């Protein structure tokens, strides 16, 4: 495999600098945007995520190279000739990210790994670094396999994925309101991504985009941020703890308990159905929460 640098490594100093800038902004505008234990939890989760990624890196590259040998096309890496392939790779990798991300919210197995990223009740740049430890175990790398099968060289795909990750860092902030209209129309922005992290019923399961918000607009998952409804962040059942092990594994523990206790015919459903699903209807999925909220609104409107 061709060697390209990992762009994320070069971005780390900028991440730290921007974090400090955002903290200064928070000091002036709203001190509640940061909390020391929350920030420590986010950053520790991010650090261990890097270690976990490094430990399984060889296996992910191996899987990519294995798929790449069955490629449909031979696509080169050289920028002057293959510049269009780089652009196409970046766009298609972002589409693959959208599909992964939507699955990560709609299938409990993938959610168990992704939930770490949503487990903070804060929304600041440290939240961006709160990343999964169990991505490899949950098989999330499979979502990029089509790119290798098309013929995009693994080094090109991983480089584009790194750029995608870097892009997503700056959108985890409340310090920026709205970007210019044309930018909001095409790109994922702090406003769009705040909605994605929201637990307000209106905002649940929306805006899965990585870089381009157009995927949500095309595939029916776009919800705009409203000025009259501030976003509340976190997960439906807030963790209520700064324990990093619990943040990393609580949903896996939940799956294990549910699978153990469920009747045989429902065991698999506790892995592949949406988070909150239960065979006896005793819990709430995001769709049920939204339906209850909508019903409540209709009653309120009728009363008015």
């Amino acid at each position, binding site marked *: 495999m061709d060697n390209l640098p990992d762009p994320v490594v070069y971005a780390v100093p900028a991440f*730290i600098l921007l*974090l*400090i800038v955002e*903290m*200064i902004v*928070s*000091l002036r505008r709203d*001190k*509640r*945007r*940061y*909390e*020391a*234990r*929350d*920030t*420590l939890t986010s*950053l*520790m989760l*991010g*650090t261990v995520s*890097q*270690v976990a990624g*490094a430990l399984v890196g060889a296996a992910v590259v191996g899987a990519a190279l294995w798929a790449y040998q069955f490629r449909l096309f031979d696509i080169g890496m050289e920028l002057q000739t293959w510049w269009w392939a780089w652009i196409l790779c970046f766009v298609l990798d972002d589409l693959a990210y959208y599909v992964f991300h939507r699955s990560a919210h709609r299938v409990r197995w993938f959610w168990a790994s992704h939930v770490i990223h949503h487990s903070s*009740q*804060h929304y600041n740049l*440290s939240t961006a670094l709160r990343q999964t430890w169990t991505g490899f175990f949950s098989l999330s790398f499979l979502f990029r396999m089509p790119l290798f099968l098309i013929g995009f060289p693994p080094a090109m795909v991983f480089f584009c994925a790194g750029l995608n990750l870097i892009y997503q860092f700056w959108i985890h902030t409340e310090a920026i309101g709205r970007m210019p209209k044309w930018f909001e129309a095409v790109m994922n922005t702090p406003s769009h991504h705040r909605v994605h992290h929201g*637990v307000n*019923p209106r905002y649940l399961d929306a805006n899965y985009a990585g870089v381009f918000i157009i995927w949500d607009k095309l595939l029916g998952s776009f919800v705009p941020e409203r000025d009259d409804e501030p976003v*509340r962040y*976190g997960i439906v059942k*807030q*963790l*209520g*703890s*700064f*324990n990093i092990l*619990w943040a990393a594994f*609580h949903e896996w523990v939940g799956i294990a308990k549910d699978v153990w206790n469920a009747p045989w015919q429902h065991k698999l459903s506790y892995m592949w159905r949406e988070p909150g699903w239960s065979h006896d209807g005793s819990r*709430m999925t995001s769709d049920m*929460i939204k339906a*209850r*909220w909508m*019903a*409540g609104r209709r009653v309120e409107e009728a009363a008015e």
Partner: protein
Amino acid sequence: MTAAVWIQLGASLAAVLFIAWLVRAMGLGADPRIEDAAHAIRLADEAEAGFGGVEVARDRAGFAAIVRNAEGRMLLIRAHGNHFAARPVDASVIGRLDKDFLTLTTRERTFGAVTLQLGKEASVWASRMREVVRG
């Protein structure tokens, strides 16, 4: 692992601790309190859409509250960092009454036990908890 990897890991941990220290040193953060019954009811609705609280037992200092709805279901709300977290008060929750204090211990160890100073109301809410346990 090579020495370079250990150095990178050590530097990352140092940066993490520095930033967390900086957040505290800059005085960022808040001391959230449940201001009144209306606030507690709103927090319960945020924790569970449409909960519809009708009665509240609020800790004197505002660190926590129990909200009860018309169906008799109860939610325990407590401060967590700058925000709040809630859990249902069901048969698995252990309640302990000590004069004006009611301590609720949930099954979730990471959520911990919550002690509410409720004054004379403490015994009323303790008996409500017993009703929940009896089903």
